[in-house]
């Protein structure tokens, strides 16, 4: 098999498209040096090959994974596809090469570098989804619930079953601002929409009332003798705060105080230079 150092695969960014890359790589007996979505972003001396998404090819690959490796492997690959890991596409391709060779036991080869990077990336992704099952904050707009998240990974598909089950008799929307996609659940039907823009409308007085109640509960429940902001930050990283009702104020306070410190520094410098 050629190492394919001089070919870059380009595909349409869909899961089926990636499976067609895998198909191509097996057919040509080569491993590409890079897989990119659309045009490669950097100029390169390698050949660029656009891989067409053909349903039949992708079906052959996805059918072969559970047959020759295992259902768990297919599940892992699907989750890896949602990951924000930089070289996720190439890692999936190499994993499948190794998997088709090793069979089901690839899943146990935890010390293998490819398997290790997949497991780490998938954990990062599923863990982020798990955190968000707790950190998501809905607002009520006349009976319709809406929430905005900004995850690193494409977690929407992983969140769908949890929220459609929990809020089965509600109508709701979860908007992923990072990836411009949304989970829309309306009269008991769920749908994932892509390439959309959405802004939360201003809250009603009733909604504000519950926000205030929740914020006051949040402030009260912490024990001041045990104040431990670092522990809190480890368990609830700051990047989630902007979309959390009770934490938004905290961010502003922090920003204001840093601004004040910055201003102070500036004036001190100015004073000294004068």
């Amino acid at each position, binding site marked *: 098999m050629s190492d394919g150092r001089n070919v870059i695969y380009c595909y349409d960014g869909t899961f089926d498209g990636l499976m067609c890359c895998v198909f191509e790589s097996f057919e040509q007996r080569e491993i590409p040096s890079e897989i990119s979505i659309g045009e490669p972003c950097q100029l390169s001396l390698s050949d660029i090959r656009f891989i067409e998404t053909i349903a039949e090819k992708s079906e052959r690959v996805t059918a072969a994974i559970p047959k020759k490796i295992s259902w768990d492997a297919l599940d892992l690959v699907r989750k890896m596809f949602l990951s924000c890991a930089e070289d996720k596409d190439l890692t999936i391709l190499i994993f499948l090469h190794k998997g088709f060779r090793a069979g089901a036991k690839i899943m146990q080869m*935890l010390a293998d570098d490819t398997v290790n990077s997949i497991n780490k990336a998938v954990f990062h992704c599923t863990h982020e989804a798990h955190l968000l099952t707790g950190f998501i904050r809905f607002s009520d707009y006349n009976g319709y619930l809406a929430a905005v998240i900004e995850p690193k990974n494409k977690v929407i598909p992983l969140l769908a079953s949890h929220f459609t089950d929990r809020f*089965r008799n509600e109508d709701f929307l979860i908007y992923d601002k990072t990836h411009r996609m949304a989970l829309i659940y309306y009269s008991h039907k769920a749908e994932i929409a892509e390439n959309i823009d959405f802004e939360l409308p201003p809250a009603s007085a009733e909604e504000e009332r519950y926000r205030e109640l929740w914020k006051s509960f949040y402030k009260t429940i912490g024990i001041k003798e045990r104040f431990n902001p670092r522990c809190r930050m480890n368990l609830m990283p700051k990047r989630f705060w902007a979309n959390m009702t009770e934490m938004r104020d905290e961010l502003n306070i922090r920003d204001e105080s840093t601004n004040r410190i910055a201003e102070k520094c500036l004036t001190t410098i100015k004073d000294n230079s004068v």
Partner: protein
Amino acid sequence: MDISEKLKILADSAKYDAACTSSGVDRAGGHSDGIGSAAKCGICHSFASDGRCISLLKILMTNFCMFDCKYCVNRHSNDVPRARFTPSEIADLTINFYRRNYIEGLFLSSGIIQSPDYTCEQMIETLTILRVQYKFGGYIHAKAIPGADPELINRLGVLADRISVNIELPSQKSLNRLAPDKSKTSILLPMGHITQKIKQNSYEIVKYKSAPKFAPAGQSTQMIIGATPDSDFQILRLSEAMYQKYSLKRVFYSAYVPVGDQKLLPPAGTKPPLLREHRLYQADWLLRFYGFKAEEILDEQHQDFNPLLDPKCNWAIHHPEIFPVEINKAPYETLLRVPGIGVKSAQRIIVARRQSKLDYNDLRKLGVVMKRAVYFILCLGKRAEGLVVTEAGIMRQLMSASVVKELEQNGYSGEQLSFFDTEKAVPTLEDTVKCLTGEM
């Protein structure tokens, strides 16, 4: 009084209850026309400024109380603002918080008003509104009211996922001193009753699928640490008995935060013994997941934890006869005893070594904390390359970063440390280290 004012008062008086977990039961919403579900792993919805998880709306129904337990902020003789929620106010608040995904469910406790039975009935009414009227399928943790009729506890248990009775203080002597209205039997009686009910219920469910589930997420309890002179060993042995005799799901430890000046208690301003609480949780984990017995962690001669080392590291350095262990051969139970190897990494080692022999580099990938483990293991019969084994060196690696920092600030240098000094150092270091937070 408006809801907001009540919420402030009744959350404030509930905050010292440590248990905020929502774990232990899986319940899908399915096709019911209500709202809510429960996840076995538990879900944290936020973290408070003290770093503790917020999973449930943790409130008291009321903080009026007939009892006068000295350690308790709600004691009858304490001059604090009092409030009382009606059952429908609590249900309404729970549902509205739940719909916004602020919470996983409700944690309901209460001061005792009129009588234990009356208090318990009010709680039952609250849970009934939630479960029947709103068809609420989220998590509910209810506190059993000591002294309430067993029949009422039974009704509470069918509505709640988890029930708890706080043991509060680790010995009868301490109870007599600080909680004159409670006795060991008045606490253990309902606890035993609940244990029995859970067991009996697990048979009934096998027999009749439709039998109502009694506290499916089990029973838990809480002990206050540092309000009384009880030793760590006494506490740990009690926890072990709780797990074994009463099949408790969890024992929680709550570092005592002084609530008003009381002659019998540490004075106001005393810092809560957080390091001690942290060590107890570590030891508790060893009991539940690592196959340790209380006597292995502490004993009659060593009644208190080593403030410098976590209990597992402490055990390891006192058992040189077991180490080093060969990673490619050692059974699971032995792997679990190695500092730096946890439940997950031990499981991964077992799986991965069936496929290939593991070396030091592989272990790192499997999530082993090498800085600690390296002194206690062999890979393919070999020590890690370039490993220098000195007592002071090992001690430094085994201590958590914050303990090292604290020591340096107090003028200790790494070279002075040895395994055997640490026990001598306990009393002098206790004070400096005990206020360390749980960030290790």
